[in-house]
């Protein structure tokens, strides 16, 4: 019984870790734009929250399709 519970707990932890990894990778790979400015500041915007970013990533996709 105790062994079964331990095994269940172990499998649950492994599944959670895997799920978290997949989720983080998906978040990281979202189309995004990072702008770096002369004063040292940086602005990162992702395409889900910004029309500007969606437009720029769309243009980048067109460029990449043409050259890659």
């Amino acid at each position, binding site marked *: 019984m105790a062994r079964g519970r331990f095994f269940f707990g172990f499998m649950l932890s492994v599944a959670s870790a895997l799920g978290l990894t997949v989720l983080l990778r998906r978040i990281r790979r979202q189309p*995004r734009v*990072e*702008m770096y400015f002369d004063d040292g*500041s940086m602005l990162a915007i992702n395409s889900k929250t910004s029309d500007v970013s969606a437009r*720029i*990533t769309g243009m*980048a996709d067109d460029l*990449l399709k043409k*050259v*890659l």
Partner: protein
Amino acid sequence: MIASHLTCKQNFKEKTLPTAKEALQELLEMSSSVRHAVLVRGAGDVLASTFANSDSEAGMVSMAREILEAARESAGGMDRAALTQLFVEAKSGCVFIVTGENDTWLAATTGTDPTVGLVLYDANTALKTALEGELGAGGSK
């Protein structure tokens, strides 16, 4: 003797200051994730490029310029300082644009998952090297 010294000096300058084309080749060697790069002044004066095909080169220059203008426009609307570097991660890869003096800029494309900081650093170095080389060549004329 003076003539040979001048020639030697000129050769030294030529050897130490690479051309724009050499700077781009060095960028490709340093950053293995970089697939294509163009070095441009203004809207379309191509100083160097890694393309063998002029159609692809022209396409990349005009599209990268549009991206740069769109980013500058949006940054201008947010009262930000001048845009110096731009990184765009798209579905099929990434586009890097770095800007330099006298409206020069360098655009590079990579596949997915590049090391962003390293590519930006190498692109900036290539742009600076190319501009220094151009200044050196201009000065030695």
